[in-house]
Structure formats: C-alpha cells, structure tokens
C-alpha cells in the first residue's frame, strides 16, 4: 500500500517537476511564463499523435518537445523582442493551445477518439535496487522519463547555482539593464531560457500521454502547468526546492487517487481540489514573492 503510494507520488511528481524546472530557468532570466500550461498541452497532444501515427515512442517524444518549443519560441518573440505583457501573452498562449489541440484532436479522431491509444513507456526495474523495501519501487522501478527527470534535476541545479552561465542568467533576471550594459545579452539569455523550457515542458506534456494516460483528452494537463508555477514559488527559486514541492504535489495527487479507490465517505471533489487548495494554503502561510528575481515579469526593452 505504502509502496504503491510512493511509486505513484514519484510518477505524479515527474511531469510537474519537469515543467517546474523549465519555469525555474525562465524565471531566473526574468520572464514569467504563464503559457506553460499551453506548451504542456501541445506537447501532450503532438507526442501522442506522432507516436500513434509512427508507432515510435521516440518520435512521439520528439514531436511533443518540438511542439512545446515552437510555442515557447512564439512566446519569446512576443515577450522578449516585443516586450509585451508577459501574463497576458502567456494566458493567450494557453487559450490558443487549448483550442488548437482541440481542433486537431477532433479533426483527426472525430468525437469519439476511442482508438487514439498508444503503447506507453513501460517501467524499467533497475535490478536489485527495485527490491529495496518501501522506496525501491518508487525510485528504481519507473519509466524512462522519470529517470530522465532525475538526471536533469542535479545538472540543472548545478548549472543555475554554480556556473558562470547561471550567474549571467540571474543577472538578466535581477538587473537586465546592468546585465546588458555588461554585454551579457539579456535577449539572448531569455530566448535560450524559453527554448530550454520548451524542451522540458514538452517532455512533461509527453509524459502525460506517453507514460501516464496512453491517450489524449482535451485539456488533459488539468492545471499542472499552473501548479508548476506555484512549485517554483514554493521551491523558493531553487531547483532542489522545486523538487521537494513537486513531490508534495505528487503526493497530493497520488493521495487523491488512493483515497478515491478506498471509497471513503469524503466527496471525491475534495480530493480533486486538494492540490490547488494546498498551493494556496502553502503560499499564504509562507508568503509569496520575497525571493523572486527582481525584474520578474517586467517587460524589458534594450536601451
């Protein structure tokens, strides 16, 4: 029981973590990406569509990443080069992606869509490690995308906090004018951040269809992109903090399914609302933006 719960927690935390790490990168550069939900949804849809038609999970993964990167490039053009309002542009991207995936989905699979199913990424047990009591299944008997997220996490943490590139990134997020004056190239840093976030968000979307659901449902990201935004705040703009917050949300989601399956008297809507309420409560208790990059969300036009 506990083993299954922990395994489910890690699996549910993975797409949130991937998206949150992308968002972390972007926010360090001074951009807030509300369009993360849309990129995730696009990643989910195109990953499944490509996997369905090609029969290859790898191609599916590539298509999902490609779609999310393309959307993020559009966002970068708007928020970096044209310096438009980041919240509004991101929200528009969310609406656009919801609409586009809906239109394409119905066009390709009609209204039933019952046949729109692919073979998913299977779990890969890492030998005897997977037989460690309690945590073995959660950590060492997961699908490839979970392991990929495990690998990305320390690398990204190191990059952001210990490298010159990470330092430049933070300069762009704290004092873009100063960073530009030093020749760091704020526009370039922000473009790279958004493209990298597109890769991570695309993986996160692909996880939903190729490693979790095996099919596509309209609007299936169900707010995970927004939860990722909250995770970055809860994680205090640190990669490991984001990981901890992601696990918290993963646990809330796993609990939701676990308790539903147990058939408690509590209405199931309580569990469905749980992650969102939890976000608010945690933010309210620990406060919001104190550690945020100073220039976060402010349109910046190069002088």
């Amino acid at each position, binding site marked *: 029981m506990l083993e299954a719960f922990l395994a489910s927690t890690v699996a549910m935390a993975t797409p949130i973590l991937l998206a949150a790490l992308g968002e972390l990168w972007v926010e360090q550069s001074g951009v807030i990406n509300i369009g993360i939900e849309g990129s995730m949804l696009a990643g989910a849809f195109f990953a499944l569509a490509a996997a369905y038609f090609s029969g290859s999970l790898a191609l599916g993964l590539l298509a999902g990443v490609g779609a999310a990167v393309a959307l993020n490039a559009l966002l970068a053009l708007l928020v*970096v080069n044209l310096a438009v309002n*980041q919240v*509004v542009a991101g929200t528009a991207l*969310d609406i656009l992606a919801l609409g586009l995936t809906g*239109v394409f989905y119905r066009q390709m699979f009609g209204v039933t869509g019952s046949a729109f199913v692919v073979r998913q990424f299977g779990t890969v047990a890492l030998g005897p490690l997977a037989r460690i009591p309690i945590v073995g299944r959660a950590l060492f008997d997961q699908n490839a995308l979970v392991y990929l997220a495990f690998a990305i996490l320390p690398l990204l943490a190191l990059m952001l906090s210990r490298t010159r590139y990470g330092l430049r990134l933070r300069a762009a997020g704290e004092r873009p004018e100063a960073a530009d004056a*030093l020749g760091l190239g704020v526009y370039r840093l922000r473009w790279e951040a958004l493209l990298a976030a597109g890769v991570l968000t695309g993986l996160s979307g692909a996880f939903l269809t190729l490693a979790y659901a095996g099919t596509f449902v309209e609007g299936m990201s169900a707010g995970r992109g927004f939860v990722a935004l909250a995770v970055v705040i809860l994680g205090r703009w640190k990669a490991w903090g984001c990981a901890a917050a992601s696990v918290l949300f993963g646990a809330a989601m796993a609990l939701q399914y676990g308790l539903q399956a147990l058939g408690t008297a509590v209405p199931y809507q309580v569990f469905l609302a749980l992650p969102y309420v939890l976000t*608010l409560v945690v933010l309210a208790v620990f406060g919001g933006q104190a550690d945020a990059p100073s220039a976060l969300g402010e349109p910046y036009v190069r002088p």
Partner: protein
Amino acid sequence: MLAWLGKPLAALVLSAAFIALILFALGAAPLAVFAALWQGAFGNWLATTDTLVKTTPLVFTGLAVSIAFRGALWNIGAEGQLLIGALAAGALGIALGGWPRPLATGLVLLAGAAGGAIWSAACGWLRERRAVSEVISTIMLNFVAVQVLSYAVHGPLIEPSRSYPKSAPIARAAELWMFAPPSRLNAGMILAAALALASWLWLFHSRSGFELRAMGRNRRVAAFFGIPVARIGIATMALSGALAGLGGAVQVSAITHRLYESFSPGWGYEAIAVALVARLNPLGVLLTALLFGALDNGSQAMQRGQGVSPELVQVIQGMVILVLLAFDTRAWAGLSGALWLGGDPTAPAGAPEAGAPAGSGGDA
C-alpha cells in the same frame, strides 16, 4: 478615434487571415466557414437574439477583467468567480418560492455578486498582505470553483429525483424578466449595458477610478503620492469578482434556471480577449463581447454545417490576443537590426522602459 479603432480592427483582420490558413490546412473552405459563422450568429431574428444571450455573460466577465487589468491586477479568475456567483445565486434561488418577484430576483443577483466578490477578494488579500501573485491564486481558485460547483450539484443541491447531477430549478419568483418571448432577451442584458456605462463613468470620471488607473500605470509612484494602493487593490479585486459573479447569477436567473457541471464554457477566460480587444474600455467591452458572443453562437452552426470543431473559437481568441499584443507594444521603437544576438555595450544602464508599468493595452 480612427487610430483608436484601427489597431483592434487590424488585429482582427490579421487573426482572420491566420484562421483562414489553419482552416485551409485542415482541409476546410475558409470562406464557407466564415459564412456559416455569420449565418449562425445573425442569420435570423432568433439567431441574433441568441447571440445577445451568449454576449451577456461576456459583458460581465469582460468588465470584471477590464477593471482589474486597469489597475495592473492580473485577475485570471473571472471563470471561478462567475461559477461561485452562479452557485450562490442558484442555491438561494431554489429557496425563494413565494417571495415577491422584485425582491427575489434582487436577492439572487446580490448573492451572485457577493459570492464572486468573496472569491476574488481572497486573492486580493493574498496579494496585498501575503505577497502571493494574484495570477497564481486566481487560477488556483478557478479549479477549486469547478470542484465546489460539481460537489454542490452532485450532493446538497441535486434535484429531488437525483437522476442527473444538476440542481432543482430556482423559484419562478427568482427568474429574471424576459421581455420578448419566445426569444430569451432579458433584463440581465439591460443590467449588463448599464454596468458597462457605470464602469466607464467610474474609471474615467471619478477620483477612485483615477487612483486605480494611476496604480496600474505605476504602483510605486501612485503609492508615493499617497494613493492607498493595498486597499484599492483588495477593493478592486472584490469589485471585479462581483461583476463576474453577477454574470453567473444573471445566467442562472435568466437562462438556465438551474445549476449543473460545466456551467461555463470558459466565459472567464474568453473575457481576457474581450477586455483586451476593447483596450480595457468598459464601453468597448459591449462591442467586443458582442463580437465574441457572435463567434460563440456562430461556431455551433459552423460545427453542424462545416464540420469544424467549436474549439476553433478558442484558437481565434488566443490569436486575437497575441496579435493585438504585438500591435500594441511600445517595443517597436526599441527594435534594432539584429533581433537578439549581442548586446549594445555603449547603452546606458537603467533604461527608462525597464520600470515601465506592465500595461497591456490601456493607453486610453
């Protein structure tokens, strides 16, 4: 005046061109689709009145978003506020059998406004007192509102026969006045128009409206000049939520007469497009809400006739917002030859634009 209308119109035309491209790629005939849209929206008297029915909630939510955005309060939660308003109105409306009609309808609308106001004031409070981004909190509460409504219609408010997850109908006394049956034209539309005018007067011809706009332009400067920004922030969020909640109450009281799951097709999100195309002008909202209401109504006919899914309307919404943002940006002046490669080492630090308000399109 022409310049003021020019950009939104150009944005719409450009969006239409993009849509035509997408339709073409999907193998549909763009002109036939647009014709079907028009037929569905304004083809005959009943279609036209139905367009007005679909316009009404967009006016309420569009006003809600416009007012909040004017103060640089990014309320993305009109959707949840509308749902909670509808829930409050519906729950009260069921219990008002035998009450005099003006009193009952008045109470139902009031309940809706109060519900929406509480839902959004919480986010205003979190923003001003706990530094929690209103973008995050309003979005989170949208998801919570969906679940609250779902619980209500599955549980305490379920109709007596318990066969479907929908509420019992509200009392006849709580139903809004329909003045031209069989069409569904109703008093809520008049209320919507009146509130648009009132919002416009308040924003542009009152002291507190000015203070709100000053805060939206530059919060720090506004605070420096003694404008109570935190208090205005919370109050404006509450007002914004009240408008959205009222929209939900009108929908229950005039059109659906009951509550059910997926009560809103996304009016709260659509409102962002409505408000931005109107350039956050309450009177402009009347026009843009009509435009999007017509799109909503026409898209259903389009789906039947042309086999294009109604989600196309969301594509149009997203596209219109993005195109309009691109049109409206101040950054064109700052664009130099190379797009993003390399910085300019001779540029002075502390560009004036860096601290510019996060204004989206509100330069009226």
